[in-house]
């Protein structure tokens, strides 16, 4: 029974922690102290609930308890400050009285505080690692142990990272607020980057880590869905959610039984999760319905949606995908996007047109040591019947890849092209 209550208490905590901490940061103005106070309330619950049973409104109970502790903490602080004042020091800001504080708390919808917490956890003053850890901890409700497990690092490393992050926020006097309009888009993309990084950490996990990592995809999706409700008018938030839902729909299909990755076009579409696809398409519609220009996440989601809608690889709408890559390379020009565009253009308009796009990348320094460019060129040349050139490209790709299996595959394709050249 005590064990049962203990688990119920932890479940309440998992659901309520982000809201509790968010409200407390607003009250006390410090993430570290807010988390401590929330933890105190949890400890009180763990003591009291096994004796008295889980209250009917456990969320309200935790919030009331934490608030009282916060008010006590503020009173203590204020007494200290008053002493300082007697000594002639001036207060920079006139603090609110306790009743006023309570009024502020009652008036502010919790969702506003939650959104402020999102922006503070992903603040650019923090390193990327710190943003990820703090976001999962404060907003995902994960324990440091769970975060450490998911990222395959020792628990003390994560604990340290979180402590340091909280200190950095305090020292930099980072305000607890939603960024103003002029910096919102930049700050929002930092938030989306953190969520997508968590997702990819889970998504790109190898088969050996089968157990823990897909949970990160779920954590990222949950954070994304929460953010979509907090910021319903931001198309990129829905874009990211759509992208993650659709990518997650392929989790079961993307690895062979022996753990080798399977290319999208070769995946067994019967294994794609139709529920997540439906959700992804719905999220994409929400992004599109806002009527603003689509950003990089929404465009990537729109590309993923083209694949998701095709019942077979042959039914893929490559003309639309090529057009979406055009738009994507306008918004976020990069050699890798161009390379994908070359492939899409080749699928839509034939290998010669695709090759033109790929050839324009020949002098791109960042692709010099990347096996994918010669691989793509080899593929397109082969399809154009220029077998000898194709063989040379595949050989070049083979020398550039560091993956032994990949090299074998590329050598095989080179041999195939040479044979075709001799037969021709």
């Amino acid at each position, binding site marked *: 029974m005590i064990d049962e209550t203990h688990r119920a208490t932890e*479940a*309440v905590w998992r659901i309520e922690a982000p809201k509790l901490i968010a409200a407390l940061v607003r009250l006390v103005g410090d993430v570290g102290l807010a988390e401590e106070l929330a933890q105190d309330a949890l400890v009180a619950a763990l003591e009291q609930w096994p004796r008295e049973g889980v209250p009917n409104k456990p969320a309200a109970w935790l919030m009331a308890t934490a608030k009282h502790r916060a008010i006590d903490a503020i009173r203590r602080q204020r007494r200290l400050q008053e002493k300082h004042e007697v000594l002639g020091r001036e207060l920079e800001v006139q603090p609110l009285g306790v009743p006023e504080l309570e009024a502020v708390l009652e008036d502010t919808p919790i969702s506003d505080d939650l959104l402020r917490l999102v922006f503070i956890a992903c603040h650019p003053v923090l390193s990327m690692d710190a943003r990820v850890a703090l976001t999962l901890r404060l907003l995902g409700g994960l324990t440091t142990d769970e975060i450490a497990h998911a990222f395959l690092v020792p628990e003390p490393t994560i604990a340290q990272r979180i402590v340091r992050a909280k200190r950095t926020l305090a020292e930099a006097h980072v305000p607890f607020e939603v960024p103003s309009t002029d910096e919102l888009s930049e700050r929002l993309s930092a938030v989306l980057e953190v969520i997508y990084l968590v997702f990819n950490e889970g998504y790109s996990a190898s088969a050996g880590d089968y157990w823990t990592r897909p949970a990160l995809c779920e954590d990222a*999706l949950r954070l994304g869905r929460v953010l979509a409700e907090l910021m319903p008018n931001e198309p990129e938030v829905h874009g990211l959610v759509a992208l993650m839902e659709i990518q997650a729909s392929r989790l079961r299909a993307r690895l062979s*039984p022996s753990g080798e990755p399977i290319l999208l076009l070769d995946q067994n579409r019967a294994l794609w999760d139709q529920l*997540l696809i439906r959700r992804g398409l719905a999220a994409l519609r929400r992004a599109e319905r806002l009527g603003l220009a689509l950003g990089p996440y929404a465009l990537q989601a729109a590309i993923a949606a083209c694949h998701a809608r095709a019942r077979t690889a042959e039914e893929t709408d490559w003309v639309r995908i090529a057009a979406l890559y055009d738009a994507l390379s306008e918004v976020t020009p990069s050699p890798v996007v161009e390379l994908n565009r070359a492939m899409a253009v080749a699928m839509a308009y034939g290998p010669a047109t695709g090759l033109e796009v790929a050839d324009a990348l020949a002098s791109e320094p960042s692709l010099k040591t990347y096996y994918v460019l010669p691989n793509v060129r080899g593929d397109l040349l082969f399809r154009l019947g220029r077998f000898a050139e194709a063989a040379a490209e595949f050989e070049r790709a083979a020398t550039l890849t560091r993956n032994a299996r990949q090299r074998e595959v590329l050598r095989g394709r080179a041999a195939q092209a040479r044979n075709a050249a001799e037969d021709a």
Partner: protein
Amino acid sequence: MRFMVMVKASAESEAGVMPSEELITEMTRFNEELVKAGVMLAGDGLHPSSRGARIKFSGDKRTVVDGPFAETKELIAGYWILQCKSLDEVKEWMRRCPNPTGAEGEVEIRQIFDQDDFGEALTPELREREQRMAEQIGQNRGG
């Protein structure tokens, strides 16, 4: 982890009585909470069993039985699909499910199978067989 939460039928739901405005309002509020927390993946209400049917299997024999069905409390009137961290979390969410009429009711929580649930018992060979099976099903479905 995914869970299915099944709402058990009642005399009213089986009689096709539509929920009151109050119940719909409360349920909408609850569903919004689930969506805001990012845990609700899907959910629907079901028509009464009088508009359903059962297929009974016995060897090669198939018998079709049209509704309604008698054992009201064993029937399902609706469901949610939730993604949560644990069964305990789903339990905590469902304790919060509104019941404005004060009527007797019940929801049942069941975890949805995932390939990961088989863990190490699912060897690579078994996994491969599973996948081949799914491929065949896919081909059949694809026609």
